[in-house]
């Protein structure tokens, strides 16, 4: 990601905008710096403050928020600290859910992307359009429609009952599977598009060479195609995993108490009187840290790849 667009034009500019470049980039720095960077820093600060009863904070330094996340009786109490598993479990579950959603997107998305990439060039745009049009519908509406579809008394169950495949409505809503479907529905194009971009560049002469050397179709897929398309798969996976991790709508509308995820945990801290702002800030910081580490890791592998 970083590198391509940023570096292109770095050496070729005619010096037309000599001296003016700083002014041109200034608005972006002001707006994003002031309204995103600064807020994130403030959030970091807030995670070290004391909570106010009705929401908000008291400006007094405290590690209570992080303490609460990791430990039950506190690091600084009289008794020995006991690890609080509740929140760590929630995080772990979110990682798991996000991972499964990514896998689901991969299993369905890769064949789809490959299929489209192997169509006649004229048709490819149509297929891509078909895949991406649903994405442009409001995420909320998409999640709501998924909820509507898979409810106990919803059309899907009606359909399956009518077909005679099942005798009683399948309980899909408020399960892990429902959340998976929700996440899949939210982020599938993010998997398909990068994989498609990689697949489109695949040189079919490689497949021919493999066939010439006695490799079957699936062996070729495993040994030749997948490694070549891997950058797209990795990019797609990141693009699905990261938003899924912090997702709010899918778990909230489609999941239940047993599928509580980070997004809902955070949202809870800022609602009404039961909220704990520093704690919410702390959990957000932890989420942000994990995401940033993932992205840095990805960027690092990209630059190492380019250096090769």
């Amino acid at each position, binding site marked *: 990601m*970083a590198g391509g*667009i*940023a*570096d292109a*034009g*770095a050496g070729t*500019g*005619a010096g*037309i*905008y*000599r001296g003016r*470049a700083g002014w*041109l*980039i200034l*608005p*972006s720095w002001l*707006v*994003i710096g002031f*309204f*995103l960077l600064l*807020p*994130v820093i403030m*959030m970091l600060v807030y995670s070290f403050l004391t909570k106010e009863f009705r929401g*908000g904070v008291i400006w007094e330094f405290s590690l209570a928020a992080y303490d609460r996340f990791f430990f039950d009786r506190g690091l600084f109490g009289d008794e020995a600290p006991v690890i609080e598993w509740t929140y760590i479990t929630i995080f772990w579950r979110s990682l798991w859910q996000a991972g499964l959603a990514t896998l689901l997107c991969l299993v*369905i998305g890769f*064949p*789809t992307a490959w*299929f*489209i990439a192997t169509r006649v060039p004229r048709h490819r745009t149509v297929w891509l*359009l078909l*895949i991406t*049009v*649903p994405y*442009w*519908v*409001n*995420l909320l*509406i998409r999640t*709501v*429609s*998924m*909820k*509507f*579809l898979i409810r106990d*008394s919803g*059309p899907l169950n009606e359909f399956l009952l009518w077909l005679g495949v099942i005798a009683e409505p399948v309980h899909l809503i408020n399960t892990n599977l429902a959340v998976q479907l929700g996440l899949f*529905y939210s982020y599938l194009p993010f998997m398909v598009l990068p994989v498609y971009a990689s697949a489109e560049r695949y040189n079919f002469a490689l497949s021919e060479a493999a066939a010439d050397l006695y490799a079957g*179709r699936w062996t*070729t897929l495993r040994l030749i195609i997948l490694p070549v398309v891997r950058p797209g798969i990795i990019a797609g996976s990141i693009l699905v995993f990261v938003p899924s991790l*912090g*997702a*709010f709508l899918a778990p909230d*509308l489609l999941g239940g108490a047993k599928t509580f995820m980070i997004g809902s945990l955070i949202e809870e801290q*800022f609602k009404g009187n039961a909220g704990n702002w520093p704690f919410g*800030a702390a959990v*957000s910081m932890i*989420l*942000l840290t994990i*995401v*940033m580490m993932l992205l840095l890791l990805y960027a690092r592998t990209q630059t190492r790849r380019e250096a090769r």
Partner: protein
Amino acid sequence: MGKTSGKIIDLRRFPGFLPLTLLCLVMLYAPLLVVMVYSFNDNSSITLWSGFSLRWYDDVFFGLEAPKFKQAALNSLTIAFAAATCATAIAVSAAVAMLRARNLRGRTASFALINLPLMVPEIVTAVASLIFFSAIGFTAGYLTILVAHIVFCIPFAYLPIAARMQSIEDTCEQAAMDLYATPAEAFRLILLPLMLPGIFSGYLLAFIISLDDFLITNFVKGAGIETLPTAIFGSVKQGIKPNIMAISTLLLLVSVGFVTLSYLASRMGQNPKTQINNDKKL
């Protein structure tokens, strides 16, 4: 080596991929189609189909909750319009700096900055924005929503603009200057007209992103104001009513319409202009 003798094997085809693709499409469209269909249901039970009717659309526009939704829609539209305009202006400025200035210092940092809203998880942005506005005493409401929207619309406006600009050879601007055009004239007469499809596309993208936003809006809006997505969410929390499906269908159609426009805009002028460059590559 062919297992079916006499037939030319298509090395591209994998059995099972077509069904999976179709399954994928079904999974993507089914929920939406179902909602659309049921929005015309002449029954308030939303599970039994009892005939075609426009009563829920009627309810949306003229029913009990109509004023609430109308105000919410108005808010959404005006905010989207304002946010997209600001974000696009900032994005154009940034794109010119990133792609045409030779010695821009901190280029990588700027690129990271422009994409920062995309990299930070939405909920983190939402929390941070809420905390920030609260800390500086900026009362939650229309303006906080607008400001937050401008921030995350910038990268969306930037992407099509930058993509378009990259496909314009900067030798055209050099040629313009060679022919006595001042830098401002070169921008106005050469770069800007050629960039226009990208700017238009970026604007539309930013518009729809703003219109559709839920999470960040929900956090920073405070109690007194609703946008369409937050109004819909609030309503859904009380149970899915048929008028929700009518609104959803309407919003769905608007979104699709806008994106189609954006796509057409970015394709506009794609063919003749890039032809020149392609012909000359030997």
